[in-house]
């Protein structure tokens, strides 16, 4: 195995821009065509507002998307971009990122694009750990095709294609990503600009594939899907904000809860005002194995329950494109650059005349 260049920072190879940038620099002249009130607007604003922080050259940033309302995203970013075909963005971005280490490559996908038709490319990108940032806009519905249920819709969901309720049990995108060996997994919410930005920052700083699930409201076909964690009245009771190195506590003052281990080798949420407070598990996002991260992901289910948000996992692991680059460099270093004439004459040859 070649040295995985674990020393490389996420963006070390991407040229920086001298000038100072603002959100405006990342806006295009294209009319944004999402429905008024769509959660996608908030995410777009957050991304445009965050990118200047990285100070990268705009021309070295690429957004690749599939198909869906969410996948229209690249048209509104004044960077390079590709609005590709349904579900294939992770594969396309893999080729781009693997051949161009000087680019910051972002994938924009939806719960249908990324988890239905594109599920396989997604899980393979995660295990390969290509240097990609994948933002999955999860509105638990197919927006662009006018409201069929998606792989993240709750069981029994009544939609155009399921008048008597959907029958299939939904994916938990965080559980799936962790099961697929993702080196970085996070969840955030469209309406919480500060949290969303902090997660984008962590993802950008991670070298390798970063998977970010963003709860996004589709006010036309699935309005209020995430009300519980958005409604000021309930939000604090159900939202678990994960902070690396901190004991896992949440809830309103006086109604705190903590997450502690169970005898069965899992974790559970218990009243945190009493003695149990001391038993709170200390969260480690960098744990070599995502045992706790996975257990925490199970506290949330598609129909509500508790919802941990933040960075579930963030570990350093050899990056696919770094490893490939090294194999190429090593090959050239050891045997010299390829010579075409020499290549053709390799193997048994003979001369005539």
């Amino acid at each position: 195995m070649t040295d995985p260049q674990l020393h490389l920072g996420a963006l070390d190879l991407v040229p920086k821009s001298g000038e100072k940038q603002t959100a405006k620099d990342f806006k295009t002249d294209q009319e944004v065509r999402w429905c008024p009130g769509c959660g996608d607007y908030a995410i777009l604003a957050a991304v445009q507002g965050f990118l200047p922080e990285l100070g990268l050259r705009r021309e070295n940033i690429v957004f690749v998307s599939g198909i869906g309302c969410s996948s229209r995203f690249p048209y509104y970013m004044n960077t390079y971009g590709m609005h590709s075909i349904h579900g294939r963005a992770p594969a396309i971005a893999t080729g781009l990122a693997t051949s161009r280490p000087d680019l910051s490559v972002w994938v924009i996908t939806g719960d249908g694009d990324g988890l239905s038709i594109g599920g396989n490319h997604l899980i393979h990108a995660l295990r390969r750990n290509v240097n990609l940032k994948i933002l999955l806009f999860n509105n638990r519905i197919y927006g662009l095709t006018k409201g069929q249920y998606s792989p993240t819709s709750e069981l029994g969901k009544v939609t155009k294609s399921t008048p008597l309720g959907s029958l299939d049990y939904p994916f938990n995108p965080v559980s799936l990503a962790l099961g697929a060996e993702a080196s970085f997994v996070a969840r955030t919410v469209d309406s919480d600009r500060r949290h969303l930005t902090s997660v984008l920052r962590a993802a950008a700083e991670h070298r390798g594939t970063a998977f970010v699930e963003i709860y996004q409201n589709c006010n036309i076909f699935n309005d209020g899907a995430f009300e519980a964690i958005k409604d000021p009245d309930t939000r604090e009771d159900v939202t678990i904000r994960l902070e690396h190195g901190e004991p896992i506590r949440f809830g309103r003052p006086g109604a705190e809860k903590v997450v502690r281990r169970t005898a069965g080798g899992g974790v559970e949420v218990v009243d945190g005002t009493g003695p149990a407070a001391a038993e709170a598990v200390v969260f480690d996002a960098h744990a070599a194995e995502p045992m706790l991260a996975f257990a925490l992901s199970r506290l949330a289910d598609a129909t509500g329950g508790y919802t941990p948000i933040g960075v579930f996992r963030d570990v350093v692991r050899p990056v696919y494109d770094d490893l490939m680059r090294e194999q190429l460099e090593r090959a050239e270093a050891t045997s010299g650059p390829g010579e075409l004439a020499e290549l053709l004459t390799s193997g048994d040859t003979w001369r005539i005349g």
Partner: protein
Amino acid sequence: MTKQVRQLDRVVIRFAGDSGDGMQLTGDRFTAETGAFGNDLSTLPDFPAEIRAPAGTLPGVSAFQLHFSDHEILTPGDAPDVLVAMNPAALKANVRDLRKGADIIVNTDEFTKRNLTKVGYAASPLDDGSLEEYRVHPVALTSMTITALAAYDIGKKDAGRAKNMFALGLLSWLYNRPTEGTLEFLAKKFAKQPEIAKGNVAAFQAGWSFGETTESFSVSYEVKPAVMRPGTYRNVSGNLALAYGLIAGSRLSGLPLFLGSYPITPASDILHELSRHKRFGVRTFQAEDEIAGIGAALGAAFGGALGVTTTSGPGVALKSETIGLAVSIELPLVICDIQRGGPSTGLPTKTEQSDLLQVMFGRNGEAPVPIVAPRSPADCFDAAIEAVRIATKYRTPVFVLSDGYLANGSEPWLLPDVGGLPDLRVEFTTAPNGPDGEFLPFRRDPETLARPWAVPGTPGLEHRIGGLEKADGTGNISYDPANHDTMVRLRAAKIDGIARDIPPLEVDDPSGRAGVLVLGWGSTYGPIGAAVRRIRDEGGAVAQAHLRHLHPFPTNTGEVLRRYDRVLVPEMNLGQLAMLLRARYLVDVITYNQVRGMPFQAAELAGVLRDVIDSD
């Protein structure tokens, strides 16, 4: 005693045995010796889809056919003159293909009751006279090999394994082949197991001297070197030549090669070969499936790489949606389809030409893609370079349409002078091209209609492309009816225009008095050419033309078709090129089709040609 040496002008040998007997290797070695000796040659491996069907069974038989000569030849030969049968199954599976009076060398050690019944021989064909039309040479290959290796500390089992080298030694003697190559090869191959190396050499030499001494072979043969154009040669298979052609295309265009591929027979070897040339900056990505393979290649192309994907028919089917995207966003991409028997999984290890219409039309919407087809194993090198040229110059996906016969078959290749290869350097767009200093990603070159290729990292040219219809020029999403009509026609005109940039269809009609033209494409070049020769040797007249470009056709194609009374189009499908020609030129071409998973036989085609010529 020195034996008499008889001169021959050509020989066809077939090695056949169990999948585990190393027949492909034996064939490769004999081929290498033969090439080095200076004969012209052509080979055809034929192996089952299973890895190692149980020993001694018919499905387990693996064969390798070699045709070599003192003159130029075009095919691996129709009926073998010599069959080496390592067991009863190999004999049964191949004997019917031999010409009468052919030599059959059998490994008698394997002709046990058990093995015979396994393949349904009631009595041994060696005794029941069923082979009297042939010259049978019974040789105890296994046991003699074991004896020969007794001196070395090699287990009996491993010793027996060297029997293919014994056979190779025997055949090398029989045809007076040089031996250095093989000795070197064995030394290299078993460098880590010197004992095994010695053993194999011993087996090889034992085979040779057995030939010299045994009664069973009264004469040995000599096939003089062929007169071939001067230069450096090597033996090359189509897949190897294709891989080299892609690397060359990368060097000539100055674009780093990115291969996104998923293994599939008979294309996998291209992935294997390219993965070995990292010092050429070649990136090989083994994807999770065909769709990811081409997707990654397209992503790399967006980034300025030479994006390539390699597959076979079923993989092309899966890639078709992405090919449509490549057509729509107009990026260069080379798609290699190594055709195999279909439909569906079909006959994975057999050859066929039945993907032509798929690659021509297998996408939603009007999505034209150029098609280039190699005609021989070595020609795959040039075809690959031509595909790279068209893809990069016109910013379009291009198909290289090879097949299983070209992929695994081999022939001597006169190595080109690298300096003489075409300059394919690509200029990326680096400055705005719009009237108001803006960048218009779909503002086309007036001559080629190619759009600018501006890669990420180029300041000021940030732009977005996608599969929705784009406004002419700006490339912004457009649902305007007139614009869509314009764009559909522009994309078509761009591809049609390539016809102006390719050589006219050449016709070989030495007598100038031929009334019949035989027109082919792809791997049928060899058999057609051989058949044409036979006709001409008989004093008959026939014209031959072979299409390298299947889309668009050369501009003179219609004129050529009309020049002849009758046009015969032989294909290893049900008439796919014929249908394109009829539609385009309204010429009533005569079709001759076979879908047997095997290349045409020259004799058979010659017969068909005779009938067509005489049919009036």
